[in-house]
Every structure is written in structure tokens, then in C-alpha cells.
């Protein structure tokens, strides 16, 4: 493992502030970032990630390589929840297994953007359309989760209330904001892009840093829930991302993605959703316990990815000569 990238990643202010948040909770400090401030940061980040993705997409262009990447993304977003569901069913009831599987089939935009920041620092190029892949991978896992519940839960539920499930999966707040901003980025003129730059580029890294301080606070508080859930779930939260990342890197090699895109594709498969999926699961699979799937995605998988995962996957990509 090339300690250099690992260390340079861990010494990035965003990751350092994540540690500060965790430390504050472990030291029982009363440091707190009250609602709706976390909501302000996550809305800003989704808006800017989408908009910048749209702008880069416009510069880029569309070719078969882009299409193949999108197809791979959608397949991953359906395969991961199905495989995860059967593994989780070893120890969990249908509802919780489906909800956690949906979370791990979906993605975390902030993990994605922490990876793009690292790529920029190491000046490794990547394509704008990867943000579109991010948007594509948000929702399918939610539908997969609900279908799995209907298939395996006791049969007394008639069919699936498809309109509501699809609205929950494809029209929840984060997806609408991400996809909407992406489309607006596509339509924006050069002048508009320029006048938005201090907002979308200037303060972006600073707001991301402030947000990761809050994520550290939230993750550390969720840790207490996890201690009660036992080793199996923590194990899944650590292993699933690594396995998913390795598989993603292999697929990337097969499709011939560049180094940057491969890392982003691995991070999408390895990251779990803690905003879009929990919001959807509460309505479609209310029997599942939110503190389980939120804690795993936020307190185990998110820290794993931004501290160790991202540099590790990059290392692996270089090893396999993608």
C-alpha cells in the first residue's frame, strides 16, 4: 500500500474535521450542529455536485463508452442489493435485510465528491458523465429493496403500490435536486457558469469540510446503536464496500474505463446511501428499523470509504493497470 496517498488523503481538512467530529462525541463534548444546518450543507452539496456534473457533461460529449458505463452502473445498482439481500438474510429478517441491501445498492454523493477532490489533488483526469452515473445509481436499489420485500415477506400484502414506490425511489428530494441541477448545468451558458463559480467552486471545499465535521458528530453518535446490533452488521458494513469495490474495478478494467473513472465507479459501488434510501425506506418498508441501516451507512461504511477506501481502491486500480 503506497502510504503516501493514504496519508495525503487522511491529512485532507475534510477527513481531519471528520475525525474532530468523532473525537468531540467520544470526549462527551457538547459540540453540536443543530438541525436544519446539516440539511443546508447537504442541499448545497447536492445542488453543486449536480450542477458541476451537468456543466462537465456538456463539455464532454456522448459516445458508446459513456453508454456502456451507464449500463454497468445500472446493473451494479440492481445486482448489489440482490446479492447483499441474500447475504443479510443469513442473520436478519426480510424487512431489515431489504432496507440495508437497498442502502448498499445506492450511493453517497459526498463520498463520490471526496474522491473527485482527491483525483483533482493528484491531477488524475475523470469524466463529467460520472456524475450522471451517480444519479443513475441513486434509485434502482430502492425499487429492488421493495420488490424483495414483497417477494419474501408473508404474502398477505396484495401487490406493490407501484406509483408510490416509484415516486419514493425516483422523485425523493435528493434525486430530484441532483438530477435537476445536472440538467440545469447542461443548459447553463458560459457566462452563467462563470458568475456561479465563487459559489459552486470557491466555497465548495470549505462547505464540504464543515459538512464532514457534522458527519463525524453524526457517525460517532450512531456508533452506540451499532454496538447493540452486533458484529455481523459491522462486519457487513466493512466487507461489503471492499468486495463491491473490487468487483467494480474488475468491471472497469473489462470496459476499459480510465483510472479516474474507475475509481469513481468503485466508490459508487462501495458507498451506501444515508439520505435518499432511508427517506424512501421509511415509507415503503416501515417495518425495517431505520437506526440499523442509517447507522451502518453513516457510521461504518462512510468513514471506511473516505479514510481508507478511496486511496485503497486507487492503489488497487494502479496495481491491476486499469
Amino acid at each position, binding site marked *: 500500500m503506497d502510504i503516501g496517498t493514504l496519508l495525503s488523503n487522511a491529512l485532507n481538512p475534510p477527513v481531519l474535521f471528520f475525525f474532530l467530529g468523532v473525537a468531540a462525541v467520544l470526549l462527551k463534548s457538547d459540540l453540536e450542529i443543530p438541525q436544519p444546518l446539516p440539511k443546508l450543507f447537504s442541499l448545497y452539496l447536492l445542488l453543486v455536485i449536480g450542477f458541476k456534473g451537468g456543466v462537465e457533461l456538456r463539455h464532454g460529449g456522448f459516445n458508446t463508452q459513456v453508454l456502456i458505463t451507464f449500463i454497468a452502473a445500472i446493473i451494479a445498482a440492481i445486482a448489489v442489493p440482490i446479492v447483499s439481500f441474500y447475504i443479510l438474510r443469513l442473520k436478519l429478517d426480510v424487512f431489515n435485510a431489504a432496507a440495508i441491501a437497498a442502502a448498499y445498492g445506492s450511493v453517497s454523493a459526498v463520498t463520490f465528491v471526496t474522491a473527485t477532490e482527491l483525483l483533482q489533488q493528484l491531477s488524475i483526469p475523470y469524466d463529467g458523465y460520472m456524475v450522471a452515473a451517480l444519479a443513475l445509481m441513486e434509485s434502482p436499489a430502492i425499487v429492488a429493496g421493495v420488490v424483495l420485500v414483497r417477494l419474501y415477506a408473508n404474502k398477505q400484502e396484495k401487490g406493490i403500490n407501484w406509483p408510490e414506490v416509484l415516486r419514493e425511489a425516483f422523485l425523493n428530494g435528493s434525486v430530484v435536486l441532483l438530477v435537476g441541477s445536472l440538467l440545469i448545468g447542461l443548459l447553463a451558458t458560459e457566462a452563467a457558469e462563470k458568475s456561479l463559480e465563487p459559489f459552486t467552486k470557491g466555497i465548495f471545499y470549505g462547505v464540504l469540510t464543515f459538512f464532514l465535521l457534522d458527519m463525524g458528530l453524526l457517525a460517532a453518535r450512531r456508533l452506540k446503536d451499532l454496538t447493540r446490533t452486533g458484529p455481523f452488521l459491522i462486519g457487513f458494513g466493512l466487507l461489503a464496500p471492499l468486495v463491491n469495490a473490487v468487483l467494480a474495478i474488475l468491471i472497469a478494467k473489462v470496459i476499459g474505463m480510465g483510472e479516474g473513472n474507475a475509481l469513481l465507479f468503485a466508490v459508487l459501488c462501495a458507498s451506501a446511501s444515508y*439520505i435518499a434510501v432511508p427517506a424512501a425506506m421509511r415509507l415503503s418498508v*416501515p417495518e425495517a428499523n431505520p437506526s440499523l441501516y*442509517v447507522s451502518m451507512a453513516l457510521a461504518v461504511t462512510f468513514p471506511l470509504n473516505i479514510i481508507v477506501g478511496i486511496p485503497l481502491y486507487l492503489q488497487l486500480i494502479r496495481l491491476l493497470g486499469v
Partner: protein
Amino acid sequence: MMKPVKRIEIVVDSVELNRLIELLEESQIKGYTVLKDVLGRGVHGLRDGGDLTDVLTNIYVLIACNEDEVQPLIERLRPILTRFGGICLISDAQWLIH
């Protein structure tokens, strides 16, 4: 001057807000009060709001209504409480006629 009414208090997962409002309208309940960002603990565990979404928060609804409106309302309410959890308390009060 005063009329006896029933005070219905409901605390339920905030995700149920729309469903609950629809239910009130179906039961011809024209007056109610809603508090958001309510925290608490119950059978479904701790809801301390500590999250990026309002996944871990409740809502509190207060309804002052006549005695005869209580029965139809709680019959519609029961299936929601059974499926999504939450509590419903009913007490007596006097309504100041103005």
C-alpha cells in the same frame, strides 16, 4: 361560555404526517395543531433527530373535538399506529367559546 371537548394527542413517526392529515380530513376534523421536530423514545427505539434527514423525528398532533367525533377518528387511526407505531392519548378539557 365553555363546552366540554375531548383532547386527542397523537405522537407518531414524522413520515406519517401526510397520511395522518388525510385521515383527519376524511374524518371531517377541521381543526388540529401540529408540532414538528419532536423527539422521543418508544417501542421503535430512540428518535433523537440526530440525522441528515428527519428520519429519526416524530410529529405531535393535538385535536380538540366533540365526544362523538372521537370514535370514527380512532377507528381510522388504529391501523396506522399498529403498522407504524406511535401513541394516542385522549383526555377531557373545556373549550372556551369565543
